[in-house]
């Protein structure tokens, strides 16, 4: 709270005397400050001490001195205009460029309550200390929450790992492979899918990792009959990284009438969350070639979880 000074009937700097006139002691009122028109500064002590720099003039502007009135009709000539002192200061010592300084009391000093200010100040200090403690507690709690969440995730992963997810994917229809183009084999059915890592309705060619870890893959691709070209199989991670090499059978090993089944390699893949694996076939018959999807001859991909990463 700022207290209000000046603007009262007795608040003159000096009604007479030159700007450089000296002044004597003992008088009150008119000869307090010794200059007709001038800049008045305010201090925390009658002698020496520190000047108050944080004042607000009657227009509400910040200043470190107050100019005695020289023409404002609101105040008498030489009068001390209204202004506000620094926050919480009801008493100051006014100086007109030289000693002596004169004690000036705020018009509303009756509002001042020393004990109250000290109490508020003390409470503010305590509140700031409590804020600091609360911040520290919240930081500790946040860290503990993170730790707890990590532990919960670890426990969930361990529980899931104990169940050792497994899946066996099989086709519900043939997949047509364009010649000389790796093509994802579609699996519209499944024999096993313990951890919902495969969909029979959307993106059916994918085994999608929901539990990070090492997985063992085995598979086969059953091609329809053709005795031209070669047949391959491979795993593909996230559509880009072909895994290991596929199996190749030369044309002369293929019976045109009965087709051929190419075993995919047994392979361990390290998968993180959202990684997916596709089984791809490749054939070089020079024409489109289907896979088999009968009940007795069909492609499949088997997956079993081995251990956490």
């Amino acid at each position, binding site marked *: 709270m700022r207290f209000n000074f000046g603007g009262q009937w007795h608040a003159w700097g000096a009604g007479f005397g030159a700007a450089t006139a000296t002044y004597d002691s003992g008088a009150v009122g008119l000869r307090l400050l010794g200059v007709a028109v001038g800049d008045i500064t305010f201090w925390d002590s009658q002698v020496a001490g520190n000047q108050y720099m944080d004042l607000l003039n009657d227009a509400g502007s910040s200043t470190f001195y107050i100019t005695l009135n020289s023409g404002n009709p609101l105040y008498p000539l030489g009068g001390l205009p209204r202004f506000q002192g620094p926050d919480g200061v009801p008493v100051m010592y006014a100086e007109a460029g030289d000693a002596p300084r004169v004690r000036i009391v705020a018009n509303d000093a009756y509002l001042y309550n020393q004990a109250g200010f000290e109490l508020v100040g003390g409470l503010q200090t305590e509140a700031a200390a409590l804020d600091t403690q609360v911040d520290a507690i919240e930081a500790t709690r946040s860290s503990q929450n993170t730790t707890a969440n990590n532990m919960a995730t670890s426990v969930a992963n361990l529980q899931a790992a104990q169940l050792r997810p497994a899946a066996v994917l099989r086709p519900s229809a043939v997949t047509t492979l364009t010649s000389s183009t790796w093509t994802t084999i579609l699996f519209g059915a499944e024999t096993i899918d313990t951890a919902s890592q495969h969909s029979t309705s959307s993106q059916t060619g994918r085994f999608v990792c929901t539990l990070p870890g090492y997985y063992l893959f085995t598979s086969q691709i059953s091609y329809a009959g053709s005795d031209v070209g070669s047949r391959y199989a491979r795993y593909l991670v*996230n559509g880009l990284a072909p895994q290991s090499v596929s199996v190749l059978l030369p044309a002369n090993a293929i019976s045109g009438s009965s087709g051929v089944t190419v075993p995919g390699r047994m392979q361990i893949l390290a998968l993180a969350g959202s990684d997916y694996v596709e089984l791809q076939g490749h054939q070089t018959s020079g024409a489109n070639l289907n896979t088999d999807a009968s009940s007795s001859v069909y492609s499949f991909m088997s997956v079993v979880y081995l251990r956490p990463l």
Partner: protein
Amino acid sequence: VWFYRLVTPDSIEIYPMPEAASPSDYDRRGRIIEELNQRHGVPPNWIESGEGWDVALLEGDLHPSLIAASNMHPIGEVPSGDLPPEPPEDDQPPVEDGEGA
């Protein structure tokens, strides 16, 4: 949704592919793949030629890491795969009359 995904020695190119349900659709898809292979200079024996080439058809949606690493081409850049129309019979070159005919 299917995509043609080509890995060249220098880049990864991805084109959306038309749906295929019938043998003629798959024939058309094969012509599109052949034209895209030619466009990007894929060697005929790319699968035996070693590292650097890989032609594949992938089922979408594609993995974000693959999309980030690839040049994605819009459908407008995909060849139609349509066969040229049969020339009308009237355009057949005239058969020259033989001597004594």
